[in-house]
């Protein structure tokens, strides 16, 4: 009996204490969700470690669930118990979460820090604020890597996206992602469609057939990947001649593992990765995460992340601050997908188009694959 009373008393006290502190009090711990691996490491070194150092006693818990973030967040929301405070997702997922009402809408100028020269956050991020809920961090690209030692004698190193479809000059297997996005665009581009017309053509049944027919010409030589680590492994083992993957993965194969691999930047597809804040956080946790996100996406912090991984900072004002790799000591700017030399011919992931057509084209793509 006494135990129950004590318990009840403590509970009441705890509730009272929470409500007293709710005004402006920031939570002592924060659960961040990211992708794991080198990317999460770069976020820890550039963002959370300095932030924890500045905020004594803050505990940051990491959850490597970004790949399933959309489904998990929806499940948490349905169960009424969202345990995540900030989630790193690709822009397409951020749009989806925003549509589902699972991510909080953000007023960039109110929530995020302005650039050192006073440019407002919304101008500094510019077009990269692709959704009302999305706080961009990095620009990464999906591009081709190839084995330099397997380039046939007498042939030039591949420098055109259409070399992927040229089995005569460049025999050997290719690795492509097991989804229509990017592959369909590349196929049309190499089937004579002008870059500006790609999405108009892809919106039609005939255009989709055309893209699949082009992919059909190399289907027997393609290994389809679904995890970002696949292509680097296949390249390192010499299983494939060339394959698409994220540029940061290729950087680590080339510069850290010293494999005979090079990047072909032609027709690389830019995509964005950034934070979203789940809806329905209690006030103390919301206060904490708002404070963190302001810190972690300022000009200096975004530039810092590029010391650890070769992804371009999302703020225009961060670009000039990109320096050398923290461990390897090499200049990072030439390895950025946004570097002018690399960005001569680029695509930007068409979010609006794929939000509409993704399910439909994916059904056709998967049916084609299974044939």
């Amino acid at each position, binding site marked *: 009996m006494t135990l129950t009373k004590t318990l009840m008393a403590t509970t009441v006290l705890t509730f009272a204490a929470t409500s007293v502190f709710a005004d402006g009090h920031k939570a002592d711990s924060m659960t961040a969700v990211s992708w794991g691996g080198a990317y999460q490491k770069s976020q820890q070194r550039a963002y959370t470690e300095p932030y924890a150092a500045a905020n004594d006693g803050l505990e940051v818990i990491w959850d490597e669930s970004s*790949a*399933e973030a*959309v*489904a998990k967040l*929806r499940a948490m929301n349905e169960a009424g118990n969202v345990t995540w405070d900030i989630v790193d997702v690709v822009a397409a997922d951020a749009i*989806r979460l*925003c*549509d*589902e*009402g699972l991510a909080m809408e953000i007023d960039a100028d109110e929530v995020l820090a302005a650039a050192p020269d006073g440019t407002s956050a919304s101008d500094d991020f510019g077009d990269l604020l692709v959704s009302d809920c999305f706080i961009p961090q990095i620009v990464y690209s999906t591009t081709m890597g190839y084995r330099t030692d397997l380039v046939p004698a007498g042939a030039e190193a591949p420098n055109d996206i259409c070399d992927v479809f040229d089995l005569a000059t460049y025999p050997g297997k290719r690795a492509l992602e*097991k989804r229509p996005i990017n592959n369909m665009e590349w196929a049309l581009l190499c089937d004579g469609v002008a870059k500006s017309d790609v999405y108009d053509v892809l919106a039609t049944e005939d255009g989709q*057939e055309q893209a699949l027919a082009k992919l059909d010409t190399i289907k027997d030589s393609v*290994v*389809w990947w*679904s995890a970002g680590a696949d292509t680097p492994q296949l390249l390192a*083992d*010499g*299983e494939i001649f060339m394959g698409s993957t994220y540029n940061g993965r290729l950087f680590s194969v080339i510069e850290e593992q010293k494999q005979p691999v090079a990047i072909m930047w032609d027709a690389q597809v830019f995509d964005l990765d950034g934070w979203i804040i789940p809806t329905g956080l209690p006030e103390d946790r919301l206060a904490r995460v708002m404070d963190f996100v302001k810190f972690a996406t300022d000009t200096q912090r975004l530039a810092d992340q590029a010391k650890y991984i070769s992804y371009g900072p999302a703020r225009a004002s961060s670009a000039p601050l990109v320096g050398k790799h923290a461990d390897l000591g090499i200049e990072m700017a030439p390895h950025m997908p946004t570097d002018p030399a690399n960005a001569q011919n680029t695509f930007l992931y068409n979010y*609006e188009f794929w*939000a*509409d*057509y*993704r*399910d*439909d084209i*994916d*059904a*056709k793509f*998967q*049916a*084609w*694959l*299974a044939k």
Partner: protein
Amino acid sequence: MSDASTSNGPVLAADGTPLKRSLARSLRMQKTRALLLIAPLLVFVLITFIAPIADMLFRSVENQIVSDTLPETTIALRGWDPKGEDLPDEAVFEALFNDMQLATERKRHTSLGTRLNYEQVGISSLFRQSGRKIKDIGEVWQDQFEDLDAFWKKGENWAELLGTESWVASAKDWKKADGAQPRFQARADVAAALPQTLAAYQDFADFTQLEDNKALYKEDPWGKVYVALHADLNASADVSALTGPGADVLKAAAIAAPGFETVSYRDAFIDIHDGWAKLDNWRAIQTYAASYTPGYFLNAVDMQIGPDGAEARPENQQIYIRLFGRTLYMSLVITFACIALGYPVAWLLANLPMRTANLLMILVLLPFWTSLLVRTSAWKVMLQQQGVINDVLVWLGMVAEDGRLVMINNQTGTIIAMTHILLPFMILPMYSVMQTIPPTYLRAAKSLGATNWTAFWRVYFPQTIPGIGAGSILVFILAIGYYITPAIVGGTTGVFISDRIAYHISSSLNWGLGAALGAILLVVVLILYWAYDRIVGIDNVKLGG
């Protein structure tokens, strides 16, 4: 017996009650006790197993989102002929405006767009973009009122015009910290004069006070309220008798209202997004307006709801039947491979001397204790074209350098890796059954003149069938739902239906379709189990002893 036949009454227990009843009671008590003992398990299974499965089955037909988000539109749309060439009439578009107004405030319109986009390409952006611009339609009316008098710009003025004095007094200084907000109360005379306006404002008030929890007094009303006011005034509402705050402004508006410019909702919506002029979009909304739909199940068997009921999907989108067939076929192949490989091992385990058998047992169990992912990745290293097996074969000269075998990213890879991974599930039940077969039976058979083969086939093998049955059921049911191994080594021809289920659950968020695929898989397993019971008999399955 003889006692019972001599006395005519029922047999009595020691305490005088009839024996039958007393027995029944003690039996009942025993049963209750047993039930209480397993109650925790029962509750656990119910909560963690039965309930989620029921929930999943429910999701595969549930479709309330359309009628919840667009209640007026779905009702107004009932009279529209989807086979005709005409767009829905103005009343439907007006209902759509009313629904969208509320849905946009609730941020529900985009998830509805995502839902309908599974059925009709382009609806996702139709709803997203329309939600952004829905204000434009109401502003046609709103701007004219505001141009007439700045009075109409402020939420406070609206509240004082429409609310009772006592409500205004209590709502004026309400803050969130004060607790529950005083609910809106309408002035009776205004309500009588402006019925539509009040109805629209009441909707707005309910949303603001109950869902948004903002101070109603200060909130500017939605466009719909302005539209309703215009409609009231145009319907020659009698405002001449009204007094109180804003009465004069209202009277001025009543005079100006007939001269207001109006737009057709249909034109306004088509102006916002041309998707509203597409018949297919309207057909999709009408087709999926019902609260429950067979659409997900039809989709899961490569069909769809057409204008004349269920029809096959276009051939270039058919995939699920093929995958179901492949899943069943490959699971069978894997099961037979496991029997073929596991039988001799189980026999050795059961017949070797204890020490050697133990060592062998550890070898069987060792892979069992390693992470599934590690084992699968190891197979990748073994099987790939530049992998261990191919290297050895090339070194031995058995295959040429340019003729390396393709053993991964196809069905071969999936069958090899999954057979290895599921082998212990076959060996262990077979082993435990074989252990109980006395070796004397074989010796007896041979001493009666049977050859080795006859002794095995006629005497030993029939006794091991329960073990094979148990192992086969285990392996087959595990295989049919396997995900990670086929995904890693299966390429495109070796993936199972689980691959699509995972895609719809975690990537496309089409949980209804994922649930329908899962439900079909469940039913297939149950049917196979039933068939197995009819053919072999489930009593013939032994996991040991």
